[in-house]
Structure formats: structure tokens, C-alpha cells
């Protein structure tokens, strides 16, 4: 079985994001970047399936400027076999990314595609679903468990209030939620090995995809600042404030 894993380079989840003074976006210069945490879970799942012998090849793909090759290397250090870097500058919307991935699906014919359910920068939660639509294949979003057998994927999905299990004919598109697994840290020898693994470069033009944005960001602002609170002396005062001042209990 061959699988395609899509990963995105985002601001590290531990960094406090700062809105630019001119309100055009958030500050990304000299800010630590990492693989989107949900995508890391997707890579881990792929690697575990390979270790279990279910999967024979893991192709990792990312789109963006030259820096995304670092993210591809991270996935290869975790265990992905080869990389595809879709080289393009500028903002890519989920619909554009889904079209790029659809083009790669046509070329690579993977048995399934897996990615994180959402990127922690734009918080869109769209790409997997959109890829499913464009490829006319089923989707297993917000996956917390994945079982493969007989040309089908049984996906347990995290839904509001519990879990739901669906059965999908392969090829399918899977999006990973938090509970699917806990990603490993790449070992130093594996990081060294990843440096020798191949990364192919393609452009949206070569894939025949128009990535022109459909949305225009007019401005990006800081959220309203919370007013400074007070320190209460004891439980009695706290409960009194919650009952009579805030009126929330």
C-alpha cells in the first residue's frame, strides 16, 4: 500500500503570535516554525502502518516556499520515504491546496491520503474534505482510529458528543484528530538519514492548478483584550462574586 501524507509548515504552537502593526497579518519573521501538530499525527500514523507492514511507501507532500523542505525533512526523519515539494510563494487557500493534492493523487495513485484535520494557523479545517470532493472519494475526518482491511478503511471519528465509525472504500482521504496517536520524536540517526532521502520539486503550473486566492484578507487585528481581573481572598468571596457580580452560577 502506498500513502500520501500532506503536511503544512506553521508557526510553532508554543509561540505567542503577534499581529503586525499595519494589520496585514501576523509576524512570521524570526519566529519558530514547525510542522502543524495535526499533520505530525498524520505522519506518525503513516509510519506506524509502515512499521506494521500494511504500508510499503510513504510519500510526504508540502506546498510553499523553499523553507517547507525543512518540514518535509522532519516527516522523512519520522519515517516517510520520499518528498514532494510544491514550490510556490504567497498565500495558499485550502481549495488551492486540495486541487494541488488532487493533481498529485492522479499522478501517484495512493491507496489513501492522510493529513491533519486542521492547520493551527488559519484554523480552516477544509483541505481533507475538499480533496475528497475533488477526487470523488470518501472522507474520514477527525479520525481517532484507523483500521485498514480488504480495500476498506474503517475510521472512528471524533464528533461532538462522542465517536462515530464509518467504513470507506479505498482510496479515501483521512484527516487526523488528536487522539489518533502520539507522534514520536525523530532520532538523530534518522534525522541524518532523512537528509539523503529524495525531494522532488513541482510547481502549481506543472500540476495544471490555478492557485489564485478567492478570499481577500482586509485586515488582521488583535482580539479584544480581557480586562484585568481581581484576586479574591478565599472561597467564600469567590463564590459570592460568581453568584452576585458575574452571575454565572
Amino acid at each position, binding site marked *: 500500500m502506498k500513502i500520501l501524507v500532506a503536511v503544512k509548515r506553521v508557526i510553532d504552537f508554543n509561540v505567542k503570535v503577534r499581529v503586525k502593526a499595519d494589520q496585514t497579518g501576523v509576524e512570521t519573521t524570526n519566529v519558530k516554525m514547525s510542522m502543524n501538530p495535526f499533520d505530525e499525527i498524520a505522519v506518525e500514523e503513516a509510519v506506524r502502518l509502515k512499521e506494521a507492514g500494511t504500508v510499503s511507501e510513504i510519500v510526504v507532500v508540502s506546498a510553499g516556499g523553499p523553507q517547507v523542505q525543512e518540514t518535509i525533512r522532519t516527516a522523512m526523519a519520522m519515517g516517510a520515504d520520499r518528498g514532494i515539494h510544491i514550490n510556490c510563494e504567497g498565500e495558499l487557500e485550502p481549495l488551492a491546496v486540495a486541487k494541488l493534492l488532487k493533481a498529485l493523487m492522479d499522478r501517484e495513485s495512493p491507496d489513501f491520503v492522510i493529513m491533519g484535520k486542521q492547520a493551527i494557523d488559519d484554523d480552516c479545517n477544509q483541505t481533507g474534505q475538499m480533496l475528497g470532493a475533488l477526487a470523488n472519494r470518501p472522507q474520514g475526518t477527525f479520525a481517532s482510529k484507523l483500521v485498514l482491511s480488504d480495500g476498506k478503511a474503517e475510521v472512528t471519528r471524533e464528533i461532538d458528543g462522542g*465517536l462515530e465509525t464509518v467504513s470507506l472504500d479505498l482510496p479515501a482521504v483521512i484527516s487526523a484528530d488528536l487522539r489518533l496517536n502520539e507522534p514520536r520524536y525523530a532520532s538523530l540517526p534518522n534525522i541524518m538519514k532523512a537528509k539523503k532521502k529524495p525531494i522532488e520539486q513541482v510547481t502549481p503550473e506543472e500540476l495544471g492548478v490555478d492557485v489564485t486566492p478567492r478570499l481577500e484578507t482586509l485586515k488582521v487585528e488583535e482580539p479584544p483584550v480581557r480586562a484585568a481581573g481581581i*484576586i479574591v481572598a478565599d472561597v467564600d468571596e*469567590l463564590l459570592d462574586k460568581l453568584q452576585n457580580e458575574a452571575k454565572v452560577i
Partner: protein
Amino acid sequence: MAVLVLAEHDHATVHPATLHTITAAAQLGGEVTVLLAGENCGAAATAAAKITGVAKVLCADNAAYGHHLAENVAWLVKTLAGEYSHILAPATTFGKNIMPRAAALLDMAQISDIIAVEGPDTFRRPIYAGNAIATVRSSDPIKVITVRGTAFEATAAEGGSAAVETIEGAGDAGYSGFVGQELSKSDRPELTSAQVVVSGGRGLQSPENFKLIEAVADKLGAAVGASRAAVDSGFVPNDFQVGQTGKIVAPDLYMAVGISGAIQHLAGIKDSKVIVAINKDEEAPIFQVADYGLVADLFEVLPEMTEKL
């Protein structure tokens, strides 16, 4: 302008998230049509027709929609979309699963999780887990949108008298099927929609000590959450995690107990109306965002609170 709202429902009743979505739809101006796709869902369609602000209900009663499979519902939305300028759904796991698929079938972008309508093509939405708010304008002919329920009041569930029109289904894609469902049996409310959330952090020190949190939560009818540190320490399962990479919550009252307030946790709670922090370390960053802070030992505070509530 005509707006289509994809209703979340359980075939018998309409999910409250739909009422919040209809409020956002009404702000766009124009007539609001509700699409109810389900199986034996006549009762839900009747309920939808009574919602204030709804002009028409389209009811697609078909086995293909019995479990809201995205493959089938998105295709139905696509076949109906031509008559509408906007298509909205709640930004719940129901809407998040179906709407991007419908958007891609239409070759439209989706605007996820809006918190304000600025105009017919301009919307505000949180990015970076709410650490920044983007105002975006769409150039697409059909705006496909999911709506964050906590940002819009619920419209009244009664007071309307819309006509219900039965429509044909658009078929079963045939490559996905429902296997089963396991809804959490907890008597406690669900984290993302709870009005009160009590969360514990590393300060709890052990899985057993989370019972102290649960006792307070039960008194308040609250959901129980946890910081990433508590989850990583194995005190509670992953689905308790509140924060940027866990669940984003926006309750009326959020109580953070023994949680220092890492950035990624704060990102998940900042839309709460009132935040209470209980921590013995007065330097903990959580106090900077708390409306009420109590610097004290949680092992004394929690039992006392349980007793006094």
C-alpha cells in the same frame, strides 16, 4: 439574495447550533431557507418550520441522509446551491465535515467559523485559535460559510410558520457507510457547548485527584477539561484537552484549577465570559487573563467549594 442554511438535527429535533446559524443567516438580509436532510425526519422538519426567521424548509427524507454522511449530504447541497448567494452551516463537527466538501464540489472557497457578518461578502473569523481576528472578503458567487455558534445569539425556536417542501434526494455516493456511533454516556455536558467548564492541570498531581475536579463540576453541572500538561502526564484522556491543539471552549464560566496558563491553553479559553484561576503560584500566567483569581492550595479549595456549592 437568498440564503440556505444546512440544519443540524437528529431527525426528530433541530440541534440548537442551527438556531445560532439562522441568526447569522438573517444578518445577511434576504430570505432564509433551511435544508433538512435526514431519514424519517418529518418531526425535525416541522420543528424547523417553526423557527423565527425561516421562510421555507426543504426536507430531503432519504435513507442516504440517515447518518449525515458527508459524501451524500454535500452532493445534495451542491445540487441545490444554484439558487442561493450564501450557504451556511453551524461550525460543529457536523458542519465542518460536510461544508468544505460541498464548497469544493461548487469550486467555491469556504469561510470557516465566522464570528461576525460585516456585509454580504465580508466576514470576521478567528485565526491562530483566536489570537488574531481576520476580516475577509469573498469574491466567489456563492459564499459557503460555517458559523461559530457562541458568536451569535440563538433565534427563537418558535414563532415562525414556514412552509415545508419535500424534495428528492440526490442519491447515495456508494463508497462510504455508517458503522456505528458511541456517544459519551457521561451525565456531564459536552466540553465545547457547556456553559460551565472546570479544568484541571498538572497541579492535580495524579489521575485520582481529578475526582476533586469532578466533584466541583457535578455541583455546577459543568463539563470537565484539562490542560495539555495534565493530559501528557496521563491524568485524563486526550479528549479532555482544552487549548489550541485540543478543544476550543467558550463557556459562561471557565475555572482553571492548578493550570499555569501556557499560551496554547489560553488560546483555547479566551472567549470564555468569565475566567476563574485557582493556583498556589501567584506568578502563574493564568492570573493575567482571569477575572477572578484565588491564590491558594487547590487541595484545600476544591473540597471546600464542593461543600459550599
